[in-house]
């Protein structure tokens, strides 16, 4: 069996409300804002869990987990609300591609809604039962662990969808979410995202708990500000190094159809910008008491890295989809023309019927009457003669008109009318037989 051809669906036949390029810039900006808070939410939840487990032995880490948890519930609200804009723009710019991916993974996609809502409720439950479940610590940790497990699953569904939308050639092979999950590049990107979440949250921790205004002495028994900075910096540094393994993996598993010079240079630029940031993390970690003075520089470099990566990712999507979108554009235009023509013909048919003119008669007048008279020869044989030859055989006329031959030496050859289509040819044939017969009849 030959593989199914790449589907070429048609787009929504309404114009974009504004220039597409402006929307694309807006999409990149809105996506970065969204993903930053998603990173803080997911990375924050993982760190809260890790710190709280560690807090079983060192109560200071329990306090650190609790303080971090209260930022997670704020960040999660912003992650959702800031997700609306990129969703809106993605829906608008890539309507068909995005919706197709959503449908093909439909069950997992719609389950995101209750899953995310449940995760958020678990976060609140965890946050507000910290004291009440003090004696049932493992239950309390279990609540957070459940939220983290769900948070680890949710991005996978989003990633699978935005990946699937770029590869129409795979659409016919997808049977639900799990089969879309195994398409190339999903897991490397997923790990890349998780690493980014941990790096961002750790650096956020360095800044948030390391700032002079944070009441470290009142909150913790033994932990000092430099120690907290060191704890967060260590995570950021370690995971950043890991990112240098995961990053190339993302690049190498990326299907080549969307790669271009611009994509590669954006990614390379992003990676290069990360190097001084990591170097500065190392410098801060080498101090006996990390002072966090390099944090603005690190944050600046990594912000540019994120910008480069988001741009590269967007350009990749543009290149990957360019050919398919062009094919879709043509199909959409063709569809609109055909549809308008059919609507016009239907109206015309109604008007003719109101005037007592059949479609066959109208088509005969416009297409055939230049050569065929009713009862006398103009160029070709008249209808009376045609009606005699094809009496009770209208299909014979259709077959002839589609591919006429040459029967009579003294007549010029008739051109083919296959392009009119069988329904119209049939209507003409019916008219010819009826009119020809009525003129022949005594």
């Amino acid at each position, binding site marked *: 069996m030959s593989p199914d051809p790449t589907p070429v669906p048609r787009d929504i036949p309404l114009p974009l409300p504004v220039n597409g390029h402006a929307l694309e810039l807006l999409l990149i900006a809105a996506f970065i804002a969204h993903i930053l808070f998603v990173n803080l939410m997911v990375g924050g939840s993982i760190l809260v869990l890790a710190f709280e487990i560690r807090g079983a032995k060192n109560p200071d880490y329990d306090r650190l987990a609790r303080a971090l948890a209260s930022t997670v519930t704020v960040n999660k609200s912003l992650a959702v609300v800031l997700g609306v804009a990129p969703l809106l723009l993605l829906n*608008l710019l890539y*309507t068909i591609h995005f*919706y197709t991916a959503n449908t093909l993974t439909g069950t997992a996609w719609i389950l995101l809604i209750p899953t995310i809502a449940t995760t958020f409720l678990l976060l609140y439950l965890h946050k507000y039962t910290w004291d009440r479940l003090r004696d049932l610590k493992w239950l309390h940790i279990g609540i957070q662990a459940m939220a983290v497990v769900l948070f680890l699953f949710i991005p996978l569904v989003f990633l699978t969808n935005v990946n699937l939308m770029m590869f129409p050639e795979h659409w016919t092979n997808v049977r*639900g979410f799990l089969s879309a999950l195994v398409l190339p590049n999903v897991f490397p990107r997923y790990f890349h995202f998780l690493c980014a979440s941990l790096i961002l949250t750790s650096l956020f921790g360095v800044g948030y708990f390391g700032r002079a205004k944070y009441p470290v002495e009142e909150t913790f028994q033994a932990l000092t500000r430099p120690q907290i900075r060191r704890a967060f910096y260590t995570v950021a540094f370690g995971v950043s190094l890991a990112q240098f393994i995961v990053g190339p993996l993302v690049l190498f598993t990326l299907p080549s159809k969307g790669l271009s010079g611009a994509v590669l240079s954006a990614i390379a630029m992003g990676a290069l910008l990360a190097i001084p940031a990591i170097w500065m993390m190392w410098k801060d970690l080498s101090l006996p008491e990390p002072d966090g003075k390099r944090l603005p520089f690190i944050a600046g470099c990594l912000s540019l890295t994120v910008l480069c990566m988001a741009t590269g990712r967007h350009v990749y999507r543009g290149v990957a989809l360019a050919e398919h979108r062009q094919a879709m554009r043509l199909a959409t235009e063709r569809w609109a023309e055909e549809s*308008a023509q059919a*609507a016009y013909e239907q109206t015309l048919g109604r008007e003719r019927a109101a005037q007592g003119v059949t479609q066959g008669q109208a088509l005969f007048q416009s297409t055939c009457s230049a050569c065929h008279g009713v009862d006398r020869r103009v160029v070709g044989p008249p209808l009376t003669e045609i009606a005699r030859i094809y009496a009770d055989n209208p299909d014979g006329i259709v077959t002839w008109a589609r591919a006429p031959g040459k029967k009579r030496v003294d007549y010029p050859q008739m051109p083919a009318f296959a392009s009119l289509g069988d329904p119209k040819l049939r209507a003409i044939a019916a008219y010819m037989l009826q009119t020809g017969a009525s003129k022949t009849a005594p």
Partner: protein
Amino acid sequence: MDLPVFHLDVLNNRMLIAIIAVLHVVINHAMAVGGIPLVSYLERRGVRTGDDAWDKLAFRLLTVFFVITTTVGALTGVGIWFSTSLVNPYAMGSLLRVFFWTWFTEWLVFVTEVVLILAYYLTWKKWTGPRKRAHARMGVVLSIASWATMALIVSILSFMMDPGSWQSNRTLFSGMFNPVYLPQLAFRTPLAMVMAGAFGLAIAVGATDAGTELRTNAVRTLSRWILAWILPCAAGGIWYAHAVPSAMASNLAVALLTQALEGWSRTALGVLAAVSAAIALLALWGAVRPNEVHTWALIAPAFLAVLLIGTFERVREFIRKPYTIAGYMYANGIRKDDYPMLQRDGLLAHATYTSVRRITPENEVDAGREVFALACTRCHTTDGVNGIRDVLTTLYGPDKPWDRDAIGAYVGAMHTTRPFMPPFPGSELEKRALAAYLVHLQDHREPLEGAQVTGVRVER
């Protein structure tokens, strides 16, 4: 036609949307649009009277509203989008193109709203003393933002009922300010306030102790709040009910439909009026004898309010049929303008995803199944909610074999006798194939899976 068909053969697609949407509207109306002004009012009352008890009550209400709106409320809002774009992507995709700026503006207001509610909730206990007044003012700004998000979205809901002059000039402004918009807004705004009061009463049962002065005061105040909004709500409802049928009638020539709509709007009005009256009576009891009201009577208005809005949303969805965007797109997701071509050439000839392209006597049932998936599954299942086997059993009986020709003829004419049905969008051959499939269903209980399970095929 051009997208894979998502289908839930037990639950029904529309039911999926209904569950998510009604849940969202209940939360949004009761706990944001109406809830925040209520909290803000109680907070100001605390500031004015100097009685700390009001502040505590307001904060308890806000805590419930805050947790629920930022979790289930926010997610069901996104969920309406997810579910409608799965079930009717053409309608959603079209609305996005028309209303992009409305949605974008709504997003900006929504961001403001979320930032403000975070700030409002998190600074409640920190902004004390002289800063309390500023905090109370923040409540007012938040109330306005909450209302504005609804006010923007309602324009899109009304547009789907009656696009008004957009049909001819295609501008955003004419789409937004369609004939149903202001009446609908005039109804939803006080309705949200009534709902907030009803939910406030139910929460007050848990948030205050029975027999205390705070309970009595809370019940009296919340009941008066409900009473104050009941009349505007009824007035808005009547205006809205009058705006709908006439506007729909101008779009649809079939006289029967108008009658059916009037029947529906009267029934709906009856239900709305009875439930509103019950809420009003309970609120009156609370306002006059706040310390004698039974606990059940404090909880009942919230349930009645959910019933009220659930019914209302159901009626609203129903009367829009056969359209999903009145006069432009049918409930099956097919543009009205594409009907002549599809009826001439057939749905399958133009479908991107189908396993049958040409109908032959051998593949008729398969072709009919594809036609059913494309044309009917936005509203019908085989055996689940609004199952087609049930419909046909009612029409043709369970015992004797169904007549294929009769079903075929009915499919061609059903939109004249069942005005909420779109006309059949396919060719004559497809009508026969669909009839063959429907007859086949009589003694074959076979569920129809959506593309999320079976994937898609592209037949050349």
